[in-house]
């Protein structure tokens, strides 16, 4: 048995893109290291950030992490677009296998690390503030969940440095292509273990948020007085804890099959490939609702604040979120209508899929009615909201079209599908992340983002999005399937692909403007009050940024818009501090994640002694931690 498992010198970078990526990663780490050393901030980094259990710090780290992964995902997207624009009657500049690896990693990174990273970041920051709490229910698990996600993010990028190949199977790693017979290399294993670790992180976060929302609300805040962002996040987290275990189990089965040569999904020996489809989409469909529900809540907050009006139809909004949560479990088969389930089964799933339009419609009407007769200010978060509204309508209608099985037979796995789901994730989730970050930026960092540049960036994103994706809708109808690395010029598709490429160039400009916006805002920063937008919910009653304990005194809540009522009555939050109990910093989240990373890496490369070491490390950390009964610190009122 080889001491290094499957690792050889060949695993080191020797192709243009692995060398390029390795050099980039090395340079970035070097730059960060030099900066920290020069400013002597290693200790500060460790004490203030890496070992912190404060959800505000963890939230900021999630957002930074998501932003980094966003750049990686966008580079993948740009490479895909470029390839498709030039590959008419030619192989383009990418081999087929490389192209497949790119779209696989693009999907997994955007779904697991970018969107969920942004959302967990904002939820960590805002949910405790909105419910009048100081922390999440399980501060240690919060830290652990974050570091597991980061470690998953490292694993998904590690192949550049060690291994040189990633999964080429598509983002959900369909069998039997992802099985041992057709993909014996390390690529699929990297994907599986990246998802396992970050999936575990997401599960812990979901658990944490649910217990926090159910158990740690301020006195007087009944469930029906919670802000809508908290409600939709709760629904999203319910989906997380019920769907992610399915992903864990399914990818576990796939890994077992690959590692031990078993037969769950193989083409012979009694395997059943359709079972993989059912299992993975049983996770996959709730997952996409996890990607949109928190965003819906963010939009509700934004519309209400910038219309200076209570959200219209609060109860129906809550019901809509719950209905979406419930229905999302009943539609998974619409991802594979064409795979022979028969008309009866297809009809059931088609009808239920269409039913989801109802709660979605309810929400849209409620948002519009909130704006009606309100004093609407179009600050930049509202720009993102209006952009979302238009985009959501179009993407949603495309979805309803595909919900009909006969129609879906024409457009299944065509670029029409790609256009639909990108409309949803970009229009709802990414625009939502931008809207949320813009809206809560002053609360988080204490100064405003430049409004003019923000609005300009929006226009580039919005126009660029349509220039990119309308051609894809058309291409889908013209018969272009997804994941094509080259095609015949006689199809006349190329002009549309080139238009699409222009679209991403426009989006690229939008991103550049956002970077400039950040730099300009930091340079010209002025401290803002706790309430720069004239907000209505509790987070605006604290300073910007809030003190580490959030609230000096936990407020008692008497309505759905506690801060707005406080302002109307001319009340101020109490300045006197009561006794505050907070969780201490701990490095164990890092240590456990570190050992998990070693174990996962060792599993990918079959380095058996390292697997054992990693697992023993994790177990030892957990046992040592369990004997530490004093993880909390008391701050008396000063």
């Amino acid at each position, binding site marked *: 048995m080889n001491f290094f498992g499957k690792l050889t010198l060949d695993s080191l970078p020797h192709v243009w893109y692995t060398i390029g990526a390795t050099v980039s990663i090395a340079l970035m780490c070097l730059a960060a290291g030099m900066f920290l050393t020069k400013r002597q901030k290693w200790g500060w980094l460790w004490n203030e950030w890496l070992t912190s259990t404060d959800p505000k710090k963890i939230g900021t780290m999630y957002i930074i992490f998501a932003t980094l992964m966003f750049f990686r995902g966008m580079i993948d997207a740009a490479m895909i677009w470029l390839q498709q624009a030039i590959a008419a009657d030619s192989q383009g500049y990418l081999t087929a296998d490389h192209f497949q690896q790119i779209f696989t990693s693009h999907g997994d990174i955007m779904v697991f690390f970018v969107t969920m990273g942004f959302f967990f970041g904002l939820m960590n920051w805002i949910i405790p503030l909105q419910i009048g709490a100081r922390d999440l229910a399980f501060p240690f698990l919060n830290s652990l969940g974050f570091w597991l996600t980061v470690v998953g993010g490292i694993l998904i990028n590690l192949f550049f440095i060690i291994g040189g190949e990633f999964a080429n199977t598509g983002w959900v790693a369909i069998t039997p292509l992802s099985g041992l017979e057709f993909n014996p290399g390390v690529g699929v294993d990297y994907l599986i273990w990246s998802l396992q670790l970050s999936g575990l992180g997401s599960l812990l976060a979901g658990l944490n948020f649910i217990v926090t929302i*159910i*158990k*740690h*609300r*301020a*006195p*007087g*805040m*009944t*469930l029906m007085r919670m802000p809508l962002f908290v409600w939709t996040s709760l629904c999203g987290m319910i989906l997380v804890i019920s769907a992610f275990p399915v992903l864990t189990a399914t990818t576990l089965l796939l890994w077992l099959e690959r590692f031990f040569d078993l037969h769950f999904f193989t083409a012979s020996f009694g395997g059943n490939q359709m079972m993989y489809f059912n299992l993975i989409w049983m996770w996959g469909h709730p997952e996409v609702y996890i990607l949109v529900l928190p965003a819906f809540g963010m939009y509700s907050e934004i519309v209400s604040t910038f219309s200076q009006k209570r959200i219209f139809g609060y109860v129906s909004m809550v019901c809509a979120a719950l209905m979406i949560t419930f229905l999302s479990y009943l539609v998974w088969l619409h991802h594979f209508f064409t795979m022979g389930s028969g008309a009866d089964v297809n009809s059931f799933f088609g009808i239920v899929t269409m039913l989801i339009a109802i709660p979605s419609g309810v929400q849209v009407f409620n948002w519009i009615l909130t704006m009606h007769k309100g004093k609407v200010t179009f600050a930049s978060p509202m720009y993102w909201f209006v952009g979302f509204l238009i985009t959501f309508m179009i993407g949603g209608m495309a979805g309803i079209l595909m919900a009909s099985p006969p129609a879906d037979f024409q457009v299944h796995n065509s670029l029409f599908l790609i256009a639909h789901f990108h409309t949803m994730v970009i229009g709802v989730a990414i625009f939502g992340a931008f809207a949320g970050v813009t809206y809560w930026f002053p609360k988080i960092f204490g100064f405003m983002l430049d409004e003019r540049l923000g609005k300009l960036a929006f226009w580039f994103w919005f126009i660029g999005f349509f220039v990119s994706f309308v051609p894809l809708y058309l291409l889908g109808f013209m018969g272009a399937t997804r994941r094509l690395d080259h095609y015949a010029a006689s199809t006349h598709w190329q002009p549309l692909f080139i238009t699409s490429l222009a679209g991403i160039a426009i989006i690229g400009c939008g991103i550049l403007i956002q970077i400039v916006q950040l730099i300009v805002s930091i340079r010209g920063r002025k401290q803002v009050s706790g309430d720069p937008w004239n907000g209505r919910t509790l987070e605006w009653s604290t300073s910007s940024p809030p003190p580490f304990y959030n609230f000096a005194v*936990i407020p008692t809540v008497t309505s759905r818009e506690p801060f707005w009522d406080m302002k109307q009555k001319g009340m101020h939050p109490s300045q006197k501090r009561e006794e505050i109990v907070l969780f201490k910093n701990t490095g164990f989240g890092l240590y456990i994640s570190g050992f998990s990373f070693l174990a996962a890496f060792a599993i990918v490369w079959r380095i058996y002694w390292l697997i054992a070491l990693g697992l023993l490390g994790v177990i030892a950390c957990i046992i040592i931690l369990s004997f530490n009964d004093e993880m909390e610190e008391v701050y008396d009122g000063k």
Partner: protein
Amino acid sequence: MDLLLRIIGFVGSLILTLAAFALIAYPEYFGAKGTVLAILILAVIQFIVQFVFFLNFWREKSPFWNMGILFPKSK
């Protein structure tokens, strides 16, 4: 009293287990499908018995029961 509840739970589970195994060993009585249905029902009943008697789930003091999620929450 607590001890008695747990002994009842244990004996009840024992009976349900033995019954299930007896049915599996002699499937002629209910037929294959009938036996499977019967043992599934026995399994659910045993689950409930263990849940109630081993975990003492009807006690008012049990924190899980008294979630009070719809009422104002005091910390």
